[in-house]
């Protein structure tokens, strides 16, 4: 067993931390307040090489491993959930299915531009009437000559509507079998396809500087080359994409917890009441001790899960555990961090306020905490 990060992983952590402190921290509050997606930061993250970082070089990636990617998400989330969300959703949900299930031709067509930070890609699974029950989706596709025709709608699709979002992979029902079971198939739908409408969603409590969209398909026609994987493979594509996505949501939880903890630690040593720093009151010192302990647990469990994936071992159960655990650690730590800040923790001038809101999504997106427990219990044979 070797728990030491390689020189490269450490350098990636330092680099992304420097970047987040220098480029993101100064603008994060304002972007959040204005609910503004930043093309500039996205392009800069692209220049840094964060988009598609785990793809081989021939597709425009950097050939890095899962752990490197997860460390990058963690470091972004330590400073800002929205930017971390843009990156994590794009890398795990957006380009993941294209890379793992696309034909060589599809990969060469889409992936290089998706590694630049100048083009984003979405993953359209969730529908208004099908969230946790992802097999309840109703968007359909039927073949017509050399095309497929898609009808239906999707909701809450990250990176789905901003100008530089050039397309999405969309989960559809292509057949209902006699026994009532559905056949799911995934399609590539490019921006600008007739019948494909994108509407950005406003009024989010969290991830306010990230793009969330509704997608509408009204007799939307795509050529048969836009089939991703095989007919009927949609369910498998969806499940494996979510396994990977869970690692990056876990990383966001870990990063948010780390960020909130650091703010609380510093504040507790500066804020004086009753003549001494509030960190000197044992109740606060113990809170900080608990936070530090939970973060260490979360980090090493998540890193081990990355190690499983990088070593081609099964990791679906661990991914669900990591997602669940890290997102709940983020919740607990952010909550106590606000408590340590007292009234100031409720003010927008304090970064801990934003982390407190941003972490709330992590127990809901990509499978709620309840669904993670369901997944884990199924792995236990229950």
């Amino acid at each position, binding site marked *: 067993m070797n728990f030491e990060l390689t*020189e*490269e992983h*450490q*350098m*990636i952590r*330092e*680099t992304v931390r*420097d*970047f987040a402190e*220098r480029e993101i921290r100064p603008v994060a509050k304002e972007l959040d307040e204005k609910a503004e997606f930043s093309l500039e930061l996205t392009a800069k993250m692209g*220049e*840094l*090489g*964060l988009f598609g*970082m785990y793809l081989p070089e021939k597709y425009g990636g*950097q*050939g*890095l491993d899962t752990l*490197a990617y997860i460390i990058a998400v963690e470091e972004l989330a330590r400073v800002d959930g929205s930017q971390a969300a843009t990156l994590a959703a794009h890398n795990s949900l957006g380009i993941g299915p294209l890379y793992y299930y696309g034909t060589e031709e599809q990969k060469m067509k889409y992936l290089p531009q998706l590694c630049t930070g100048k083009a984003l890609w979405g993953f359209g699974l969730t529908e208004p009437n099908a969230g946790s029950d992802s097999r309840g989706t109703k968007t359909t596709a039927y073949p017509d000559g050399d095309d497929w025709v898609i009808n239906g709608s999707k909701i809450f699709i990250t990176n789905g509507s901003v100008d530089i979002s050039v397309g999405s992979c969309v989960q559809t029902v292509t057949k209902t079998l006699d026994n009532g079971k559905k056949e799911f198939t995934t399609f590539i739908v490019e921006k600008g396809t007739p019948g494909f409408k994108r509407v950005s969603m406003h009024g989010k409590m969290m991830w306010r500087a990230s793009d969330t969209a509704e997608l509408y398909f009204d007799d939307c026609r795509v050529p048969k080359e836009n089939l991703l994987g095989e007919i009927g493979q949609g369910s498998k594509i969806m499940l494996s994409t979510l396994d990977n996505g869970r690692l990056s949501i876990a990383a966001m939880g870990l990063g948010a917890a780390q960020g909130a903890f650091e703010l609380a630690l510093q504040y507790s040593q500066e804020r004086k009441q009753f003549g001494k720093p509030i960190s000197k009151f044992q109740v606060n010192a113990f809170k900080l001790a608990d936070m530090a302990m939970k973060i260490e647990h979360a980090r090493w469990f998540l890193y081990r899960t990355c190690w499983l994936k990088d070593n081609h071992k099964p990791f679906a159960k661990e991914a669900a555990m990591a997602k669940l655990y890290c997102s709940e650690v983020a919740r607990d730590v952010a909550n106590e961090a606000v408590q340590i800040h007292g009234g100031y923790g409720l003010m927008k001038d304090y970064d801990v306020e934003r982390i407190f809101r941003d972490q709330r999504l992590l127990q809901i997106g990509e499978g709620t905490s309840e669904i993670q427990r369901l997944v884990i219990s199924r792995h236990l044979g229950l």
Partner: protein
Amino acid sequence: MKILVCISNVPDTTTKIKLTADQSAVDLANVQWIINPWDELALTRALELKETSGGKIEKVTVMTVGTQSAEPTMRKALAIGADDAIRVNAEPQDAYFTAQQIAHALKDEHYDIILCGIESSDYNGSAMGNMLSEFMELPAVSSVSNIEIDGDQVKVNREIPGGYEVVEPELPFVAVVQKGIAKEPRIPSMRGIMMARRKPLKVVEPAEAEALTEFVRYEPPKPKAACKMVDADNVEELVELLHNEAKII
């Protein structure tokens, strides 16, 4: 044309400095190491010059005197964009020692411009660059705030009271660089980090060299005295304290 940038491996500037129990040394356990900030700016300028030179500058080499523990810092310099690295395998002792080591290691190498940061942020000696030029018998320009390459001529801005003068040194030369040499250090890209692994990092054995400095004892600075509050109405007391206690008026 080739540029060499001397790099010192120093504790992160936010490190809380602790001393060993007998105060004979700085306790370096758990210290995070970085490229000395001035050297990082020197490297940034060297890379800018290379990129805009239209191929005229063939390479930028980084060099350090340090043990194996300095290698992550050298890899970082390679990730930022240096082409190769040289490490003289010795614990740096003082400027005199370090300058001799570098001069010795460069005996059979040719660099046209050698850049040194004005000081390293750990011991702030401000001596290495000029000592190096002396050992190498090269001209040196100090207080350098900009370097431009214009055809075959290198133009160097040297800060002087009230402004700067432009000097055109003969090559090769040593430049001791300071504020202004580059705007901001560069952040390496993921590609740079990946490529750094494959770039050459040559280790050379040290020469016989002496150090002229002996570190006897370290003292932490006195903790800041508590702030004394004087009531706004009590000007007399304030004046009295400024006179007799602070002794500044």
